[in-house]
């Protein structure tokens, strides 16, 4: 089952029944793939990971290792978590061929809702959370209604939403900040699980959680590979497969080691991990996810394949509203209050994360994991430049250029792919 065959060989498990009529010229790539084919065949998706590694290494060198210190890694996560949460929803919106400019304002208005409930009315923290999520869902339904059922371009609907909900935030907060939250509420974003099962100078629980996660990842990857082999699909060769798992394990455990030596496992990271897992499955494995890709890839073909385009578009925006509310809760919790200007320009960071992470401007392409790496790439870059004391103006310019280059890369790739047929 697990021989290691070169890239041009026939699929091993099924070779007895393999079609004999496939011309040798097109049989390339059947069977297991080497590192080279793995990288070159999917430059669009692998490019972002390579870029990420380069950026991390670059700033580790430039900052003399400070950027990879336990404290700083924890900081990056806390600081960019809400952008990453927004990016999950945003990449789905973008895959379907839309855009959402309102999420910054939605972050503000949901944070304000929860602040009003918890701070002004003294409700328990969970009432604030539920209130914020309820408002987020309503706003999502509002956008979804106009985009899906009235047929107004999302750009316009959410541009209107951006103004509308910024104004609503000012209204709710009477133009002033509300703070501080109760300790329970502020623990959502700034809380850590530490010392649960001890450890000398480090948090053993953090390491344990990550070890379980790595093991789970390895098992699920192995099972996927086995299934692929069983169905005669091409897979990476075994040494490459093991190397990939080991590489991921090493990176993740190194990350865990650093976290464990800082303040332990941030709750925010747990929230984020759960969201990434759930939405990874939603986009890749569910009928809904498939329909999102189908709509973005070819709207007419999706319609003629029986996809209920209006309903799917509606729920995409409801979902974006939900995630914007989660981001709003995390942000208000982290800043320990609600400000009228909260979340300003978050939409741009989330959109940039999705595009840098490989989403296509024309829709139909993009992944949640890509958007996470894209968001982290921007995060690591900004953080590194801050550590180096680079001026704000330069930071902004660098971010702009990175976004432009990422999309230029995508357009170039597409033109090349188009030219081949």
């Amino acid at each position, binding site marked *: 089952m697990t021989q290691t065959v070169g890239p041009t060989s026939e699929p091993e498990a099924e070779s007895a029944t393999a*079609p004999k*009529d*496939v*011309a040798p010229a*097109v*049989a*390339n*790539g*059947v069977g297991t793939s080497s590192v080279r084919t793995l990288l070159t065949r999917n430059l669009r998706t692998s490019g972002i990971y390579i870029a990420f590694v380069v950026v991390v290494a670059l700033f580790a060198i430039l900052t003399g290792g400070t950027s990879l210190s336990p404290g700083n890694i924890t900081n990056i996560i806390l600081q960019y978590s809400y952008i990453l949460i927004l990016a999950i929803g945003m990449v789905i919106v973008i895959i379907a061929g839309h855009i959402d400019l309102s999420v910054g304002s939605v972050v503000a208005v949901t944070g304000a809702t929860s602040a009003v409930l918890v701070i002004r009315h003294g409700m328990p923290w969970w009432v604030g959370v539920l209130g914020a999520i309820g408002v987020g869902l309503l706003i999502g339904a509002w956008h979804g209604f106009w985009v899906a059922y009235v047929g107004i371009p999302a750009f316009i609907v959410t541009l209107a939403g951006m103004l509308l909900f910024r104004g609503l935030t000012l209204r709710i907060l009477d133009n002033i900040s509300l703070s501080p939250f109760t300790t329970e509420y502020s623990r959502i974003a700034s809380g850590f699980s530490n010392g649960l099962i001890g450890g000398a100078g480090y948090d053993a629980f953090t390491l344990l959680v990550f070890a379980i996660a790595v093991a789970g990842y390895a098992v699920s990857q192995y099972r996927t590979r086995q*299934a*692929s082999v*069983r*169905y*005669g*699909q*091409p897979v990476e060769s075994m040494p490459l497969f093991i190397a990939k798992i080991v590489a991921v394990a090493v990176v993740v455990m190194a990350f865990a080691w650093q976290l464990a030596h800082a303040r332990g496992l941030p709750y925010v990271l747990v929230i984020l991990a759960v969201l990434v897992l759930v939405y990874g*499955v939603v986009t890749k*494995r*569910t*009928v*809904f996810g*498939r*329909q999102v*890709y*189908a709509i973005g*890839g*070819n709207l*007419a*073909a*999706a*319609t*003629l*394949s*029986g*996809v*209920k385009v209006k309903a799917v578009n509606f729920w995409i925006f409801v979902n974006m509203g939900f995630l914007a509310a989660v981001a709003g809760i995390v942000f208000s919790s982290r800043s320990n209050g609600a400000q009228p200007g909260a979340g300003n320009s978050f939409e741009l960071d989330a959109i940039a994360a999705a595009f840098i992470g490989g989403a*296509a401007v024309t829709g*139909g*392409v993009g992944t949640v994991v890509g958007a996470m790496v894209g968001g982290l790439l921007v995060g690591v870059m900004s953080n590194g430049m801050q550590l180096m004391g680079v001026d704000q103006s330069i930071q902004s310019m660098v971010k702009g250029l990175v976004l432009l280059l990422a999309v230029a890369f995508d357009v170039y790739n597409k033109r090349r*792919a*188009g030219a*081949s*047929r």
Partner: protein
Amino acid sequence: MADHILEMRSITKTFPGVRALSDVTLAVERGEVHAICGENGAGKSTLMKVLSGVYPAGEYEGEIVFDGQVCSFAGIRDSEHAGIVIIHQELALVPYLSIAENIFLGSEKRGRLGLIDWNLANAEAGKLLRSVGLAESPSTPVGTLGVGKQQLVEIAKALSKDVKLLILDEPTAALNDTDSAHLLGLIRGLQERGITSIIISHKLNEIVAIADHTTVIRDGQTVETLDMSDPAVGVDRIIRGMVGRELDSYYPERESHPGAEVLRVEGWTVKHPTQDRLVVDHASFDVRAGEVVGIAGLMGAGRTELAMSLFGRSYGSYVEGKMFLHGKETRARNVAEAIDAGIAYATEDRKKYGLNLIDNISRNVSAAALGKLSTHGLVDANEETKAAEGSRRSMNIKAPTVSSIVGKLSGGNQQKVVLSKWLLTDPDVLILDEPTRGIDVGAKYEIYTIINKLVAAGKAVVVISSELPELLGTCDRIYTLSTGRITGQLPVREATQEGLMSLMTQEKELVG
């Protein structure tokens, strides 16, 4: 010797792999109305694109002599300068601009300081509108006019350019009877003013009524030029020239055993989505299990519109009519319901409406059958791969794996992916719209073989095709469609290309 305003001599135009025109000759007399006839894809439009400079000199072989001079047009501007104006089937007007703005687009009336003199432009436009018999203000936005009136604006625009030779490509295809009659009257009026016209049309009655000569083109070659003043030359005579295309593919043998009726359509009527006219007009037909039924019709006859409106009302607005599946009335109001009811429709334009070109074979094949491949909304990726892999083998899709990107496959293989997608929904009725368009002969044969396998398995198949030999080679029964109406039904052994063509061009008698 007749005075020829235009002579095209030995025009040959090749595209990569295809010879679209070979040694075509066309001679048009000054001041006449000259019709060009031919089946879909015969090369009429290509010839006109050569003439108007869309394909510039050098991209074709042969010689164009216009008004006594050998011409080599580098583009549309050159040919317009010489006095040749072409009005395409898809009108080239900007809907948000006014009639006057459209007429003078690109040749604006300039006054002082190079600014546009709108008073002059509107006055000129008004004169032109009167000459084409259009009673509208020059400042009316074109988008608010009906197609018939827009057509007249196009002609007014042509007149503003001192046209000597006006080419009209299917001018009446989108018009109702009154508008058609008015337009034909106008063309006669232009003739009196010394303007020569070339009309490309599928409506043979119109041609007989208006043309002085008719040139028939078939498979990129001139067949003949008919003198329409000869009383013996009528619709039948033109049809004889148009058909008789050689068999360019061979058709696999099939034994026909039609079973019980699967699909029956009664009085199906559909309106155009934006214009006030019927695209499908009380169409009735039926298909049996294990039977291939063909629908023959020329461009604009409403074939695709009929099919798509049956497929979950995905075209136009439903007016009336009933659809029965296995004798039970079915109201499929959207595509999902149509698929559930057991109907599948493989589009004529697979790239635009059939496939997600940036995605892989597997996910394209499963796109219409995700419900079957999933439990609780979760897609079973293994079952999906298995299904796609099964299709790849049974359909002989030439791709290394089912994760190959569909956009990179050849046309024939893309078509097999489309068919796989619909077979996976396990339909009772498959409507195949131009199933072999744009694919090579070998792949065509494979598609025919697949169709035969489907009917052998008891499916009911409807084939829509522009190629009459294809219908004659694959079908058991053929319906003909003309301007949205079913004009005839023939068992294949009684059908001939001539017979079909004459039914396909049958239309209501012209008024006036």
